[in-house]
């Protein structure tokens, strides 16, 4: 026992010594969420060009990373926060955790993606949240993919859809917002009437995308042929198939005015002592090298219109008419929407 005590205390002392080193200005720490991914060579390039060290810390999901940044306000452990999307933007701005910065490269970004008019958060990528379906299952059961949201409340799709809980999941919230854009809030048949009918029609709610997709979607042994996922998911299914395939086993259902555009951005955290380096990184992230690197890793589209997407993104079709609800409106009403939805669907 005494030997163990000695070893343990030595380890503790060592760890404290190591952990207490101060950050240097040539070190750039980027905090982000778990889905962030990029090539090592790209980061190496930035480090060499700027004589800097980059540390990327993934801190839970997008919500957890934001809360962490809010809790660390004015004493940030990171210089940049990547992964603020249009459903979180207002909250981040309210907390004033970011310094302003407008990159010159925003010229190459279409206006529709410049989601922060205050100039704190720079858009980097975007994606679409929509329904995916299991092609084989529909064919075998003589079904054709629904073309409107109303169809989902009919007997053909009884106990057929799994969605994520908007109170715990980003795609879940995105889909809820889609239904609000589609049905409206005050119409004769509004989004809550739709959700009440969905409940009666056996919609299943899961708290996270992974559980819904890998345990309830028929593709992976579950019993729901329709799932709320992303427009890029079929492309990912194609890339990550076990054996080479001609086309993906899943398909996109892109309903006009019911497909949510999720825009993600990066911001410089107040209190950083590497501000210039942070600005350089934002410029770098908007450049085509970076923008062309991440689509086949994060399965999102680059915001820079000059950046090309990989070939297999032909399976990640783009909706002709996505949802047009602004980040401001989401910021204002998200809590109210989530609570109203929870009352109708879960309570």
């Amino acid at each position, binding site marked *: 026992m005494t030997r163990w005590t000695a070893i*343990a205390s030595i380890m503790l002392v060592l760890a404290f010594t190591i952990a207490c080193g*101060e950050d240097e200005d040539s070190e750039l720490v980027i905090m982000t969420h778990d889905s962030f991914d990029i090539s090592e060579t790209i980061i190496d390039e930035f480090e060499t060009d700027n004589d800097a060290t980059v540390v990327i810390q993934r801190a839970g999901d997008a919500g957890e990373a934001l809360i962490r940044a809010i809790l*660390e306000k004015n004493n940030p452990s990171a210089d940049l926060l990547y992964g603020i999307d249009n459903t979180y933007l207002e909250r981040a701005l309210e907390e004033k955790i970011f310094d302003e910065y407008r990159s010159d490269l925003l010229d190459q970004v279409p206006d529709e993606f410049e989601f922060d008019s205050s100039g704190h958060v720079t858009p980097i990528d975007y994606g679409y949240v929509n329904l995916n379906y299991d092609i084989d299952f529909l064919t075998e059961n003589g079904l054709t993919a629904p073309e409107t949201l109303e169809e989902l409340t009919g007997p053909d799709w009884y106990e057929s859809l799994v969605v994520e809980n908007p109170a715990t999941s980003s795609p879940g919230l995105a889909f809820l917002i889609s239904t609000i854009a589609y049905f409206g809030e005050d119409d004769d048949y509004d989004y809550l009437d739709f959700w009440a009918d969905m409940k009666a029609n056996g919609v299943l709610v*899961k708290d996270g995308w992974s559980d819904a997709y890998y345990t*309830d979607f028929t593709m*992976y042994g579950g019993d729901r042929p329709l799932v709320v996922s992303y427009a890029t998911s079929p492309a990912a299914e194609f890339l990550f198939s076990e054996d080479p395939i001609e086309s993906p086993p899943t398909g996109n259902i892109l309903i006009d005015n019911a497909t949510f555009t999720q825009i993600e951005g990066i911001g410089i955290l107040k209190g950083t002592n590497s501000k210039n380096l942070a600005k350089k990184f934002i410029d770098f992230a908007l450049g085509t090298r970076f923008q062309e690197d991440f689509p086949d890793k994060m399965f999102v589209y680059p915001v820079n219109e000059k950046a090309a997407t990989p070939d297999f993104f032909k399976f990640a079709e783009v909706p002709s008419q996505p949802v047009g609800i602004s980040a401001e409106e989401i910021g204002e009403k998200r809590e109210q929407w989530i609570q109203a939805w929870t009352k109708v669907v879960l309570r």
Partner: protein
Amino acid sequence: MTASRLLVVGPISFIAVFFLYPLVAILAKSFGGGAVGLGPFQVLLGDTYYLGRIWFTIWQAAFSTFLTLVLGLPVAYLFARHEFPGKSLLKALTTLPFIMPTIVVAMGFVALLGSGGLVNTGLSGVFGDNAPQVRIANTLTIIFLAHAFYNYSIVVRIVSAYWANLSPQFEESSAMLGAGRVQTFLHVTLPLLLPAIWSSAILVYIFSFTSFGVVMILGGSQFATMEVAIYELTVKLFRLDIAGALAIVQIVFTYIFMLIYTRIQARSAVPVTLVHREAIAKRKRSIRDTLFVIGIISILLIVLSPLLALVERAISTNDGYSLVHFSALFSNDSGSYFYLSPLHVIWNSIRFAFMSMVIAMLVGTAAAYVIVRPGKRSSILDSLFMLPLVVSAVTLGFGFLVAFNRPPVDLRGSWLILVIAHSLVAYPFVIRTLLPVLRGMPPHLKESAALLGASPLRVFIHVELPLIARALVVGATFAFAVSMGEFGASLLLVRSEFTTIPVAIFRLLGQPGAANLGQALAMSTLLMAVVALGFVVIERFRYRDIGGF
């Protein structure tokens, strides 16, 4: 400072610095740094939704605990009183469910009981298309089953370790006096086992009470517990004040439960004669015993079948069995900045688990000695020591970030923060396994040694340590297991180079595609293999030659 004072100060300061301080720090921050008003509590208690979550949490945990005890006790008996080939491996396997990430277990259940799973396909095969189908996905039933599946090894391990050293003389006398087996069990064995049963019941209750993944993933969103509500309020609704209020309610509730439990447990303690294992194991075995052993082992194999189904899925591809998913883990095809070889990830998990285990053993053993010291306050302290198990990973994780964020102690990003977080949930296991033995230890043993002139240290090493060694091994096993399987804090707190196995599995499951799923299952198989190996190694640890009885 004398040794005995260090014994008291050590564990109390550990919990004060690494648990109470971060907890108070995050709660203070949640309430806006000012005085704690009643506002958030009024919102909480005035809302039937949250009251419903609180009530559901309490009763589902109680029923889950009951079910777990009923399922665990026969298995505990098997391991305590019977010897058979492969026992140590089977013992390691039965503890595996405890560490598996919930989503992986959920996939195991789907592979077995889903609509296209083995059981339903089998039913259709035998009875045709109109065969009855098992449909328990996303129901309350599967939550109870899963809680029992996760936690029965706590009952098995703690009770069997105690049972194994319990002298059979009482049972034998009872049999000689003409009592039947059932009578003997109910009136003799059960009362003697109560301290250990209470110990495991407390742990199972807490785990079911704070259950997050099981409820969310297997039950669907309609069955939210308080833990789930805290996550929603913090991360999605940004109502840190209400989340803080709910966390306080959760802590207060559990503290009261703990007070009751620990009192009962302390009262149920009886001095028992602990004997060497050989004296028990070498009894003659009847046909009835053999049938019992075979029966229980078959049931155990059925219980483990969701895990076997996972291994099967990990090695199957479209063209039969192969190890492609495993070899894929070793290549960084996309050139990702975050890629880590599985060996690196396994090494992370093992070293963090080992360090957490060492800290948990030191803190847990000292704390257990503090609790059994004579005095009235023991159950207040005992309950306090259990609290880290109740506080959710999200709350504690953010607490660490708020509490240890300025030099000289800026632990953000350090692996140490993870080891401390893991030891906090690990040491209560050491306490719970040690308490029944320490309380049952006949006082005359220590007294006679002391009378003969032995120093307290010598008494500890030569008299007490051999007696508590078996319980310590069980405590160490769980401390190791808790750290190997911990997920919430790991995901939130550490830098990418310190990724552990459960986090790696979770990340693989973050993207669509059969290859990602295959690799996640391969990684899960590696997790099971590493942990089973770890259990067998810990089991081999003997204190000199006598520790193993």
